[in-house]
């Protein structure tokens, strides 16, 4: 066993972990942050994408021990129903999701794409997130969502809550 000190979504954690423990299982099973999903085993699908010191990584390719001393951001730390990240709002509004299983990793990758390229063309979006597989949507609405989020982030629009975005009277 090995002690790791990791900052996750702004909180500090210290845990005894086996050296072989993957970051994704640390996040899911040790910390209970199940928004990060496991989709393959071969780093092909991107469902487990998180930010490590602000840079996107596939957390099935990182040992928890390697993340010691670093800051991890999962989908739960990107935004919540009280204040959605523009990318989260765009994926919802533009229907960049169906079953939703790839969505957390996809959103994290797209946020990193815009960090590197705040105003990507459609072709740059499609190439930039080709490491994240989606089996439902056919991808087009994901491209639209990234475009919408890029525009909102450029305009520095404030974060909105789910309640603000729902029709009046919805529960």
């Amino acid at each position: 066993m090995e002690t790791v000190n990791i900052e996750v979504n702004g909180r500090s954690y210290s845990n005894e972990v086996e050296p072989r423990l993957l970051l994704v299982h640390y996040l899911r099973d040790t910390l209970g942050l199940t928004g990060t999903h496991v989709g393959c085993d071969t780093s092909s699908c991107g469902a487990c994408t998180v930010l490590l010191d602000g840079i996107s990584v596939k957390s099935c390719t990182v040992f928890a021990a390697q993340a010691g001393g670093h800051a991890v951001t999962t989908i739960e730390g990107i935004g919540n129903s009280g204040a959605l990240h523009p990318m989260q709002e765009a994926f919802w509004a533009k229907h960049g999701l169906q079953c939703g299983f790839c969505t957390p990793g996809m959103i994290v990758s797209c946020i990193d794409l815009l960090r590197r390229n705040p105003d990507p063309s459609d072709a740059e979006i499609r190439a930039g997130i080709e490491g994240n597989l989606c089996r439902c949507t056919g991808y087009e609405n994901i491209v639209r969502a990234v475009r919408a989020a890029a525009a909102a982030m450029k305009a520095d629009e404030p974060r909105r809550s789910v309640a603000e975005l729902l029709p009046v009277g919805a529960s």
Partner: protein
Amino acid sequence: MSQPVLGAPLDRVEGPGKVTGRIAYTADNDIPGMVHAVVVESTIANGRIAAIDESAARSAPGVIAIMTPRNAPRVDARKVDANDSLLFLLQGDAVEFDRQPVAVAIAETFEQATYAARLVRVRYDVRPPTTALASGERFLPDQIFGKPAQHKRGMPEDAFARAAVTLKQTYRTPTEHHNPMETHATIAQWTGDRLTIYDATQWVFGVQHRLAATFGIDPKAIRVVAPFVGGAFGCKGQTWSHVPLAAMAARLAGRPVKLVVTRPQMFGWVGHRPQTEQVVGLGAARDGTLAAVTHDVLSETSMSDEFVEPSVVFSRDLYAVPNYAMSDTLSRLNISKPTYQRGPGESTGSFAMESAMDELSYALGIDPLELRLRNYSANDPDSGKPYSSKRLRECYAAAAAQFGWSARNPKVRSTSRGRMLVGSGMATASRATHRSPCTVRMRMNADGNVLVQCGTIEQGTGTPTVYPQLAAEILEIPPERVRFEFGNTDLPAAPIAAGSQTSGSVGSAVVVAARRMRELLVSHDGKPPADGFEVELEDSPPPEEAEHATQAFGAHFAEVEVDPDLGTVRVTRFVGAFDGGRILNAKTARSQMLGGIVWGISMALFEDTRYDARSGRIMNANLSEYLVPTNADIPDVEVILIAGDDPFANPAGAKGIGEVGICGSAAAVANAVYHATGIRIRDLPITPDKLIR
């Protein structure tokens, strides 16, 4: 109300939960005291287990038990009905396919169970496997979904012999695995003799009944919960072996057990689309009028079970063909049992038939679209019944106009863009819609808010969004005042969420219940009493519904660029127009079509499960070698919905829209590749090696 509710592109109600990672899929659930199970799968495709040495595994850290045929609880692995599957539950030592479950490691943590599974030593008596379609034992199945395996109308042999132009070709489609992004997962918990199951399934009631038979207990003692399902496409329709294995492991461990199927194991026991070899014969007059069609299909099944890929449905039920013959032959192989995959039958059958139609169009010098129009059928050509609705002509016209089909140079290898060869092709889409009995409970509270309860599931199709829309339309209230509860066996019984029947079945039950609630409301002067109203009913298709044939239709137009030196194909444009009857939500419906088309592009260019002929093992059982399209592989796809009511289909007026998109789209791509290159590819996928000669 100012805005129509039905068909409106409302945002998904569960969208916030999905974009914030807060909603739970099966594997995200945690039960106090829960331990983890990992399946050990066979490394041979034919033979028997000679010995299992689990001593090292049993003494590994954290291990609770190693379940093998020696100590596995005795259960009933047989099928409960013809549509069910024989399971592999460690009841014997026979191995008949690669990755068949042979043991289960149970440990405190997932890592410990995974490590222990690797320490289980299995020795086999190996026999040579058969995985090539041509080599298996062939037989005609007794029936295909209640119909004979051979069928004829008119005089196909005579008509074919007398036809001015004939064509006979063989088309092949490979084994394909569904690979939804969420792998299968099950959590099992026994409380005395009562069993609680969390499962990634398309049908909670199917799991309940299968487990009741497997364990010989009352179905009422089993509660099945399907939290959100992370995609399925057919592979989560059956209760596969890992579900009872999880419950058996929970019994052995005396603790709740979580069993998550790994991605490589998704190529094991959870079903796949079977490979097919299809011989299509077309006999036509010089003007393109079809006189005879023959469609003979050979598809694979497993050693001890039967699944027929009903590819013939497409050729049987679409064009005005007076003389027709079909046959379905099965070949027994050392493979796991195939199953339904998005558009079963029509997806594979349309590749063969719509490729053949394209070949005929070039042989006759008739435009491919014109050839389809000359064989347009007003009625179902096989039964003679009128279609409940058919707007295929409108689909052809709208998609062709949007694509700019009339500007196409009909000559093959005539168009280029830089050094790329450019081609365009089209195909027809068709997919039968079904309807099964479904029960719903609908409650209106004193405040006018409505709760609809039905034990269907959400797999990405928009269940909790679209059925409230349907109820709200009838009750004339805003849709956000209707809540839909789904996903467990405590709720009223729903049919399996598959086979393009959920809108027709659940949707119709919601419509009938909402109409009754509306009558109650009217009789109470529009105001519910203090204790509210409740309506619970089972809705079944009435006999008169069988007077019509109900199919969704569509038209696909694809443009490809082919690199003449490398043989690589890129789809550069795609337009699809669809007749899905009444559209319940334009946003979710359009997305179904986009996804379906991309499945067709994927079928045309990428997906291909490869067996090693000597070992019978799958060579590409992972997502780095089994290719599915990435974002960068796909162009913008234009979807046109030709919406309209269908009063004869079902009370919802909706035809199935989840599957029609994949039917015909692979053929459109293949036909475009022919137009670009002059090379006709009759075996999918279209890989560069087939285009470089």
